[in-house]
């Protein structure tokens, strides 16, 4: 307890003294490793999941032992808070000595930061661990929502939309987007999705858009003005058919995937979904879902993406941030992350690029009672261009959000 108080006061002293020496991105990883020793890295990451928080705490202990880097988890209720903070710092003219060193990020937040020049790098090619990433069969590790990563964020984990159902209550869940309205009509009030702009909610809309739009390839480019409204008409027909039979008749929506999971646990709904294929197993292990819950995917595949780690342009501890990002790519960290008893987040590494000992770590992992094998997970659909997402969100708000 005592060191914590000392730390708090040390922090106060630092704040008064203005510990803001310029820190540029090291040119080689060896330089980074040398400079990182003794640095404190403020890792801004969503803090809503105790299992993930525990994992990050573990990673902190490891990087301290291995590299002498102090990792502090700045828990966010929303990743955009960190984006807002970096932006506020830029507004105030603080071009170095920033308060955010590493951000857990992807998609729209990445696109916004990249476009506004709020990111440091490229740095990813400097990380030794990046050599083991499966860039060949996991294209989303280098293209984030159709935006080229260009070395500005290091891949951390894989996500794919999976559906959760309570086997005891729903033995045969709908397996195609087109089947949902009929199922919901037969079971009114037992399905729902989080309201945009929640990430998981918009992913459900994208999945439905992918299934209802005639030619999904148009989703890979930004829509022309007015094009999104025209081409998405089948999506709105689908939602019109579905909404009357949603939870609370589609007039209220859960706030997040976590809220959705809670509704499934409380028995308010029968089908939920998640962006983490290991969610069901680890939630069951944590007592957050009934043991009868199982995972399934839709016929024809589901949307998949990758989540990343990025360093803001004004980070105080860029070297330390690189060392942490590299450690999080290591087989040790990736295998632990994939363990359903720990977190259950699939690895970004290619098994065939790993040394045998490292591969054994992964082979030893249990799959988890409710997790699908890679083969069962089926095809991974690419994320649409971010512009589609904001168009769809805005159209959704016009119809259902007011």
């Amino acid at each position, binding site marked *: 307890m005592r060191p914590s108080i000392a*730390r708090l006061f040390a*922090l106060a002293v630092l704040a008064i003294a*203005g510990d803001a020496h310029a820190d540029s991105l090291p040119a080689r990883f060896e330089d980074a490793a040398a400079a990182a020793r003794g640095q404190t890295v403020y890792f801004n990451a969503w803090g809503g*999941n105790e299992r993930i928080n525990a994992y990050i705490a573990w990673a902190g202990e490891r990087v301290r032992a291995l590299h002498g880097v102090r990792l502090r988890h700045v828990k966010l209720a929303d990743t955009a808070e960190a984006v*807002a903070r970096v932006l506020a710092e830029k507004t105030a003219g603080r071009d170095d000595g920033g*308060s955010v060193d590493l951000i857990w990020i992807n998609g729209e937040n990445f696109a916004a930061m990249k476009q506004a020049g709020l990111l440091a790098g490229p740095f990813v090619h400097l990380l030794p661990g990046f050599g083991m990433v499966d860039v060949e069969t996991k294209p989303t590790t280098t293209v984030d929502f159709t935006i080229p990563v260009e070395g500005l964020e290091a891949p951390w984990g894989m996500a794919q939309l999976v559906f959760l159902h309570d086997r005891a209550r729903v033995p045969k869940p709908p397996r195609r987007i087109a089947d949902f309205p009929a199922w919901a009509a037969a079971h009114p009030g037992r399905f729902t999705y989080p309201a945009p702009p929640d990430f998981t909610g918009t992913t459900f809309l994208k999945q439905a858009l992918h299934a209802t739009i005639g030619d999904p390839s148009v989703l890979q480019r930004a829509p022309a003005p007015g094009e999104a409204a025209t081409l998405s008409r089948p999506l709105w027909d689908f939602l019109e058919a579905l909404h009357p039979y949603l939870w609370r008749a589609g007039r*209220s929506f859960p706030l997040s995937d976590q809220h959705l999971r*809670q509704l499934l646990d409380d028995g*308010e709904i029968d089908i939920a979904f998640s962006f983490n294929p290991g969610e069901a197993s680890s939630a069951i292990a944590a007592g957050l879902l009934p043991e009868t819950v199982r995972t399934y995917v839709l016929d024809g595949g589901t949307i998949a993406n990758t989540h990343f780690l990025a360093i803001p342009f004004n980070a105080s501890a860029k070297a330390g941030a690189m060392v942490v990002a590299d450690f999080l790519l290591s087989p040790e960290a990736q295998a632990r992350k994939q363990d359903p008893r720990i977190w259950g987040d699939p690895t970004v590494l290619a098994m065939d690029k790993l040394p045998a000992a490292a591969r054994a770590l992964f082979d030893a992992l249990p799959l988890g009672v409710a997790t699908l094998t890679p083969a069962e997970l089926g095809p991974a659909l690419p994320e649409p261009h971010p512009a589609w997402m904001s168009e769809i969100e805005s159209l959704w708000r016009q119809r259902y959000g*007011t």
Partner: protein
Amino acid sequence: MSGGGADRQGWLRLAPGVTLAMSLTPIGAGLIGTILPAFGWMPAIGAVDPGLGAWVALLAQLELPGAVMLTVWTGLAGTGLSLALALGFVATSHHRPLFRRLTGWLAPVLSLPHAALAIGLAFMIAPSGWIARLLSPWATGWGVPPDLWTDRDPLGLGLILGLVLKETPYLLLAILAALSHLDPARDLAAARTLGYTPAKAWLKVVGPRLYPLLRLPLYAVLAYALSVVDMALILAPATPPPLSVLILRWFHDPDLALRLQAAAASCLQLGLVGAAILGWAAMETIVTRLARPWLTDGKRGRAGAAARRFLAALQVATLGLSAASIAALALWSVAGRWRFPDDLPAVLSMNAWAAQGRRLAEPAIATLALGLLATAIALALTIACLENEQRRGIRLGSRGLILLYLPLLAPQIAFLPGAQIVMIAAGIDGGALAVLWCHLLYVLPYVFLSLGDAYRRLDMRHVDAASSLGAGPWTILWRVKLPLLLGPLLAAGAVGFAVSVALYVPTVFAGGGRISTLAIEAVNAMAGADRRAIGVAASLQAFLPLVAYALAILVPAAIGRRRVGRAP
């Protein structure tokens, strides 16, 4: 008096100025930092053309009318109901034994952090909540939760209920404090011998004199109800949400251009609060005028035991619902498995505490340190101001009081984003100092208001006696006044500490998330919708102020006993 003493007197003279500057600087700077972007000036995102673009974009938002209507409705209804409930209860029950018993519970209930209270309340009233669980299946026949819209309802009734739970005890305490200035017992007795029932006597004789003293606390409640963020995130509907939630969403949108629109909406929020307060003040004038003949119409009121019991029951119910909400959180924190419709958890488990206990130690210590420091500084500044007042024979006018109240009247979401930028520019963001400052902003007014009355009512005969024995003003302060004020000092400290523990939005904006407190942990846990994790963080957050209140009550009592024991 020695030269050193004169210097220290001079220093004391600065106290009111320093105190006000400390509250007003961040608010003023913050408002500028919000207003400039609202009119198109934010160079960081390339916005350097002043104009009304952000307002045009804001007004084009389809959610806006609904959000504004919801905000106004929930804010006014929450404030009005809280006021009616508090006044109704005091008017009908002031002469009953229950009144004294119940008022003892106000402070602990008030100390419950609003986010924790909202989370607990949400679990109470949800279709799968505790109330439904207790009634199912035997009374309701529900095997699975019904598809009923009892939480986040479209009318915002849940939010209104949450506001009532939070604000009624606050207004009751404000009424009690005001009553201590009025000495209403004699007037009430006079009215009753004229034939007035206790309730009518209170409303016609005490009410009109009480209300002016209640005005500022009431405006603070109104401002809070119109701009609350954390309770709204948990209890308000989301499509559309109240304006404050919409602003937060836009501030946090990855599309940085929305920042300007968010700033414009913050200005709108500020205007809304200002208009509501002005509107309320106008209503006061009208009601005062219309009520004048009613005061003297000679109607004495009827016995009204039913109304009295009803209002007392409502009061007990609101306090009980608050207590039950927190109890639900505590129960969840030790629940192994608790499925619908079980009344209680099927299995109890300390897993959540074991898993989080160690990680929460640091935020808990930070919360404690911040709360204690902020409270200590606020107490020191307050004593300096009051002592200055007493030595120079002046009093803080109502205008000064409004300035002191300003942090409670200005919507947090309207000035904190701007204040964040100013603090970054000053190089003090993200540190303990910035967070401490922001906490002080909110702790100070409460400490000042809690301590001011007791200080001014201090029996000056003790001071004169000490003075005639040759004691200087500082000796008198240390050896006479402060020991006499031990009880009020501790009570004011407990209030300040509770305020600090509950602060969420200011801590997030000032601390850059680097300084994590239990309030932040609780709201973050909420994002994870894991009731056990929420239960641990929120019950820990609710526990600290309760300890502070317990100490504030027990310490003076213990010292008093010791003194009595020593008396010859």
